[in-house]
């Protein structure tokens, strides 16, 4: 059975290593924070000006002056630092973030990502995503494998306006885990529990590479 968004977040949490500085995008990526193992030390960066983001506050600790990039009320952990938006993106552009987790509407087999605009329909804006994908060393995407009407979102080429070229390193969808190869193509690494390789082939428009036995993911 395909994963729900919590399942995707849980699987991605395994990618977070001890000592990492991590930027979490809006949506599923934000949920990842809830599943990071408690025995590793991680600093979450929020591009609105906070390094060392903690959990949501208890009701009595809510502070309207302390939010994350998704405009949710948050707290700080010991060792946190606050800074302005220019300093925040200085950090991002200079490659200090070890892992960046973003949502996406589409990803191409070349690692292009689209996540900010549907012409004529929806304009949210790119926020910090274009800066992140242009500079971060290690970008992984959390997304649904297909749209609500069943169209694949892992494509040969993106149909929507793109956010960045050749930047996505890994995809975690509700169906599986995929490396985006430097030479192009989605290499299947893991299947979601109960999802078959056949299901994934069906749901993937871009070039899918399946080598040997594909293990079921452990979450």
């Amino acid at each position, binding site marked *: 059975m395909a994963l729900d968004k919590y399942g995707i977040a849980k699987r991605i949490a395994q990618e977070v290593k001890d000592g990492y500085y991590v930027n979490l995008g809006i949506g599923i990526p934000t949920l990842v924070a809830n599943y990071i193992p408690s025995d590793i030390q991680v600093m979450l960066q929020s591009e609105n*000006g*906070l390094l060392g983001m903690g959990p949501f506050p*208890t009701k009595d600790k809510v502070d309207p002056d*302390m939010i994350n990039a998704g405009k949710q009320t948050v707290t700080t952990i010991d060792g946190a630092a606050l800074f302005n*938006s220019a300093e925040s993106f200085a950090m991002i552009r200079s490659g200090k973030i070890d892992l960046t987790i973003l949502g996406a509407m589409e990803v191409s087999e070349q690692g292009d990502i689209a996540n900010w605009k549907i012409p004529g329909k929806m*304009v949210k804006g790119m926020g910090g995503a*274009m*800066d992140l994908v242009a500079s971060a060393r290690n970008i992984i995407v959390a997304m649904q494998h297909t749209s609500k009407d069943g169209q694949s979102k892992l494509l040969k080429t993106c149909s929507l306006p793109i*956010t960045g070229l050749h930047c996505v390193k890994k995809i975690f969808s509700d169906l599986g885990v995929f490396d985006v190869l430097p030479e192009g193509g989605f290499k299947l690494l893991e299947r979601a529990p109960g999802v078959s390789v056949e299901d994934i082939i069906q749901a993937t428009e871009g070039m899918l590479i399946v080598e040997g036995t594909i293990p079921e993911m452990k979450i």
Partner: protein
Amino acid sequence: MINKTVTNVEEAIHDIHDGATIMFGGFGLCGIPENCIAALQKRGTKNLTCISNNAGVDGFGLGLLLATRQIKKMISSYVGENHEFEKQLLSGELEVELLPQGTLAERIRAGGAGIPAFYTPAGYGTEVAEGKEVRVFDGKPHLLEHWLRADFSIVKAWKGDTAGNLIFKGTARNFNPMMATAGKITIAEVEELVPAGTLDPNHIHTPGIFVSRIFQGEQYEKRIENLTTL
């Protein structure tokens, strides 16, 4: 001591004219100059070009000036929270320039730092790159981006002193310090205005030289956009 104090919000914004370009500090509803926005709505100043990371929400923040059609053009990075905005944009009533958030922050910082242009990798290969010079550094393509400056910058700080020095709190800092440097006239509203000499010079985020006028806001609602608790 050089004294930047004005008596109230009306005096602070008295010369903001129709057609002005204005920077507004804040990220979402956090750290926005509530008092100045409300006074601008009351004053009815029109055809504004607003530079702000977001566009408020329906009924608060810059959403107030959108509702009254006082804004001609928005320069922002993310506007996903505002239905009125999306409506005016899709109908063509509102001009919009969307920029990567880091590019927006850096262009404003450049405006206040006397750097007319710089290169950044953000946006290469996207719509944002259209018409912009591309240059390769260390094998990586970058876009030439120009500074942003404004007729007026309106920022909101936690504490300020009569010399115009500002201290921000938490993530309400965001775009405020850069914007304070990039306005021909910079207006600061603060939660608490104290005499010069009260604030520790080592803790000041925005030196007073960048601030033209300062006043204590009458009231802060500090509306929360997404209240999330454990």
